[in-house]
């Protein structure tokens, strides 16, 4: 019984971080129809910037509670600068290009970002533990769980609901849905498609940077971090259905449960299990669990 509790708690906290990681990727794919490989880079940038600011705040002898706004500020800065730059400067040129050109362009941005982080912050891991330890912990079946993990779960739920509300419940969301369904007709009826693309990409980047900054206190931010997380995010949104918000949540949960079960029962299989599930899901539902079936156009 206690093993099940442990697995569930582990899966919940890990699932929240996975959700924060992949929600931005699915938003960008949903609107722009581009699988943004540089997403992992923005995530890692958010983590580095947030951690660096938090360490700066601690270094200047501010109260450790100030590390929270520092983390958020770092993420916000990365999201609203890097996002529009990538979209306006690079992606704008390749919306009509072949799929492999789009993928390779975002891949090259990922490579550049990853090395840029190495050059700026060095090869040593960057770590700030205060935000993690300040909130204390509680015990379940004799095992200590930090409250921070459950703040993450809360943040994910709020963030996800907010996005779903914006897309489904506001007039702005209606415009986005219109652009998703038909770009040309949307332009014809006077929607500023370019603006919507920029905003959607920035929202995705912001989500990534925020996810990175929030996960940073749990782990040490290391070089190559970007390259590892981005494939995980792919797995999550491929399972859930690319472009689907609910799909990202479900995908994150499935992956995190698979990983938690594997870690506690057969530790060798943790990485393998995630991608096996992805292949199984795609073999039976190529569009993912919540994805829309794309009709072949002649």
């Amino acid at each position: 019984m206690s093993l099940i509790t442990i697995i569930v708690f582990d899966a919940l906290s890990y699932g929240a971080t996975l959700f924060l990681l992949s929600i931005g990727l699915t938003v960008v794919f949903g609107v722009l129809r581009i699988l943004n490989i540089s997403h992992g880079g923005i995530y890692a940038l958010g983590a580095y910037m947030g951690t660096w600011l938090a360490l700066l705040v601690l270094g200047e002898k501010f109260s450790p509670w100030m590390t929270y706004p520092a983390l958020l500020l770092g993420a916000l800065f990365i999201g609203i600068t890097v996002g529009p730059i990538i979209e306006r400067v690079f992606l704008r040129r390749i919306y009509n290009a072949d799929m492999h050109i789009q993928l390779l362009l975002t891949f090259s941005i990922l490579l550049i970002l990853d090395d840029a982080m190495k050059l700026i912050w060095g090869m040593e891991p960057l770590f700030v533990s205060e935000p993690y330890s300040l909130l204390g912990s509680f015990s379940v079946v004799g095992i200590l769980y930090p409250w921070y993990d459950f703040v993450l779960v809360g943040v994910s739920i709020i963030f996800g609901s907010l996005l779903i509300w914006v897309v489904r419940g506001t007039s702005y969301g209606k415009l986005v849905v219109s652009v998703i369904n038909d770009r040309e007709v949307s332009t014809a009826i006077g929607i500023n498609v370019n603006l919507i693309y920029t905003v959607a990409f920035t929202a995705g980047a912001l989500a990534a940077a925020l996810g990175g900054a929030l996960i940073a206190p749990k782990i040490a931010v290391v070089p190559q971090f970007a390259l590892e997380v981005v494939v995980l995010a792919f797995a999550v949104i491929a399972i859930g259905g690319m472009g689907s918000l609910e799909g990202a949540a479900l995908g994150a949960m499935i992956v995190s449960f698979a990983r938690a079960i594997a870690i506690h029962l057969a530790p060798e299989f943790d990485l393998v299990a995630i991608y096996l599930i992805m292949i199984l899901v795609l073999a039976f539902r190529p569009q993912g669990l919540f994805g829309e079936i794309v009709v072949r156009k002649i």
Partner: protein
Amino acid sequence: MNLSAIPRDLLVVSALLILVPLIVPNWILFVMTKSLFMFICVSGVAFMLRGGLLTFGHALFYATGAYTVGFMVKWFGVQELLIVLPLGALTGFIMAALVGLVMARYREVFFAMLNLAFSMILFGALLKFYRVTGGTDGLPTGTPTLLGIEIESDSLSYYYFSLVIVAIVAYVIHRFMASPNGFYLRALHDNEIRIEYSGVSVRQVIYRTYILAGTLGGVSGVLAAFTIGHIVPEDAFWIQSGEFVFVALLGGFGGLAGPLMGSFAFEFMQTYASKYFPLAWQMMMGIVMLLIILFQPGGLWSIYHQILDYFKGDKRGSDDV
């Protein structure tokens, strides 16, 4: 066989590949050997790209070939190239024949990502089952033997052995692209439905292409393992696959010349970058890739053609192959 029927470019390239190693220092010879096995793998990635099939998981086959060497050396002590190389091709073939069954149903982003997932499964397994695979430490491969005679991986004989394999591979690809399957592969990117109208199964076209590319990956992995002398799980990591795609794009994936140019350019770039900018190698790769995508989508091969055309005063532009 009529000698004048052989294209002049092919003669020039072959002559260069055969003669240049005789006069260069050892380290350049080593880089050239690396370029050769890179070419074998990249040519497979390149002709898939030609059909619009982008893979971020070709390292699956590369690592399969490399670990075939690792296990043959570890378990059986076999380092004979004439045994291990066909075996690597066979394991690559079997792997591609299995994975291809799933893969032939997918296109575009899904094709790229499912390939990624398969290669990450292999990566995860190689990393975690460390009792068998050596984990992050990897496996040593030792010195290869050819008919029982040891040949060092930075020696001329190893280079020429690789060159013979490259020649065979180039011939196979040439025949493949000249076959009906090759023509359908080129058409695949333009209009898949028309291929089916002509009574051909697109899945079979993709399946055969995939198997050939996978087999080449296996061959390349075997040569790579012996050249580098050590294999690690990162051989299966998706960044390795990304490098293959990068090289294909760098050279241009029109024919065989593109990947060849790309492989040589890549290996020399990497050698100098790791000497002068050890921390910024990926950044350099990214910037070069960005420049190519935005300004020169045909890669180095099309630059070469533009230069030729410029000197001929011919404004028709370049055409592939």
